[in-house]
């Protein structure tokens, strides 16, 4: 266990971050307020429309024969209208109020992250649990440098719109900075063209940022194959021929996880894996030296950066997780001991039922 001390960057950088963050929040809030403002008008308009529909349909029904389908439509409209009903009207309008619980959680979660980010900005040191797998990354790259061999990095086999791939690409950015500083060869095979473009740009920028742009080569990131097992076959063959010193797997993996990890083990590389796929974690644990479990994958980029702004996000996440654990425990007690009060209240909170 150790403490990562945050370094306070130049004031100008903070101002830039603060401006960006506050602009995003103001933008988000402004759009939300506009939508809220118009929602009441739309709700009224829809209630009027419902009445009109009922009147029109009833008028039509008197002058023509109705099919069974027409009757059911009228019944459903009548059931949903406010005529003769004492039950409160179903919520309408622009905002999906039934998701109030999710909105509440988003606000609390965002608040926790912003709070700790601000705390980090103020120069307070933040305690972050040591993650052995991430501590070993620099060691693995150092080993590759000493051996004069390549570092293999795979950002998963999912498309770029998957959050695990985004996490993988952000970690790639951090690792590319280390390989650039150490002048260690890097190989990044990818399965999707969009990931190829994203990863290539990330590596290129990372090399440029540390002033080693001349060491960057376009073939560091390679589009290999669109097929899952063709991709695995290519990477396995490459590993057995080239014998990389360090294999880093970060992202979403499926049936090919063990094929890759076992080949890597056979090639004698130090292996670090991270995925949020629970079904693949046992394979990585069995075949790799270090494995990042679930959330550690998403924390890796912030952890490797040692940036207070990013570490603040991790602390916020931890606070939210602690709150969730408390809610789960409270829920268990509530359902067992006070099912009609606390248990019911928590069920409403989790189900997000509106106006029940």
């Amino acid at each position, binding site marked *: 266990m150790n403490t990562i001390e945050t370094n306070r960057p130049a004031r100008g950088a903070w101002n830039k971050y603060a401006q960006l963050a506050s602009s995003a929040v103001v933008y988000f809030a402004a759009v939300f307020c506009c939508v809220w403002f118009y929602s009441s008008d739309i709700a009224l308009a829809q209630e009027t429309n419902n009445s009109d529909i009922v009147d029109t349909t009833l008028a039509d029904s008197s002058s023509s024969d109705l099919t069974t389908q027409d009757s059911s439509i009228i019944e459903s409209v009548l059931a949903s209208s406010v005529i003769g009903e004492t039950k409160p009207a179903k919520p309408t309008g622009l905002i999906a109020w039934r998701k109030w619980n999710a909105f509440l959680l988003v606000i609390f979660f965002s608040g926790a992250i912003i709070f700790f980010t601000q705390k980090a900005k103020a120069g307070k040191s933040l305690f972050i649990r040591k993650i052995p797998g991430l501590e070993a990354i620099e060691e693995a790259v150092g080993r590759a440098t000493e051996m004069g061999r390549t570092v293999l990095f795979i950002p998963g086999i999912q498309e770029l719109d998957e959050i695990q791939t985004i996490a993988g690409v952000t970690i790639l950015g951090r690792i590319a900075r280390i390989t650039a500083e150490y002048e260690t060869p890097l190989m990044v095979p990818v399965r999707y063209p969009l990931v190829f473009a994203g990863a290539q740009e990330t590596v290129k920028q990372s090399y440029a940022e540390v002033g080693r742009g001349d060491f960057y080569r376009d073939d560091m990131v390679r589009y290999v194959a669109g097929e899952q097992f*063709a991709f695995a076959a290519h990477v396995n063959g490459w590993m057995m021929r080239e014998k990389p010193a360090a294999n880093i797997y970060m992202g979403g993996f499926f*049936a090919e996880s063990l094929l890759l990890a076992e080949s890597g083990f056979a090639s004698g590389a130090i292996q670090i894996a991270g995925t949020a796929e629970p079904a693949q974690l046992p394979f990585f644990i069995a075949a790799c030296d270090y494995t990042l479990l679930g959330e550690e994958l*998403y924390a890796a980029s912030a952890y490797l950066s040692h940036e207070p702004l990013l570490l603040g996000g991790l602390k916020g996440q931890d606070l939210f997780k602690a709150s969730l654990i408390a809610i789960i425990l409270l829920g268990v007690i509530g359902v067992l001991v006070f099912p009609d009060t606390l248990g019911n209240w928590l069920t409403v909170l989790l189900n997000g039922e509106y106006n029940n």
Partner: protein
Amino acid sequence: MKRTVPIILAVSTASILALVFFLNRDFAMFFGVTPDDIKQEILIWVTIIGGFTLILGVVSILQVNLKSFSQKKPDRWYSLVTIISLLVMAIPGIFPGPETEVGKVLYTYLPSWIGVYGSQNGIIVNWLFDHLDAPMMSTMFATLAFYIASAAYRAFRARTLEATLLLVAAVLVMFWRVPMGEAVLNMVSPEIPEWINMILMRGVNASVQRGIIIGAALGAASMSLRIILGIERIYLGKT
């Protein structure tokens, strides 16, 4: 500008998609489109961009393998096979079918080629897929059994308390899942299979998996928020 525009794009797109989650279909009454339409439209943009990047992918494959072959590297023959495979699969696929305007003209002069190219059933691409691609993929998947055996051999060696617990749990689950093992367990006591299911799988296993899933979901949300707020910018090469 080089970094500001991508950040604005990332922040605004992510904000829109997050906001869409909290909107009703009544949104269409005011703006003419439903929240789902907006989401679908953005996903279509992603698909279009993905289509363009496919060209980059093909160029990357050709560049890497042609370079390897021309420089006479030890693995140059694999590169040659890759290039030939790419062309053999791609050319019949992009050649116009007989139902297209170009195909009608082309196959007037080359009637024997009808039914071989294009996108209809029974063409050469389908044949290549069914008789080469699919069997090779199945073969790769089948080798997984051997990899599992070698990984399990290492993982299940009872060197520590944790490894011993893993070994015991694995043996019990294997006994429960294999029909013959289940029959043996039933002979000892019919309650044992149910006990393994309840305690190991639906108890310990399910709770640990849910813990990992909840943690991963929070991590994903936290990371999304860092990107939406423009804090995480490493994808631009910036710490």
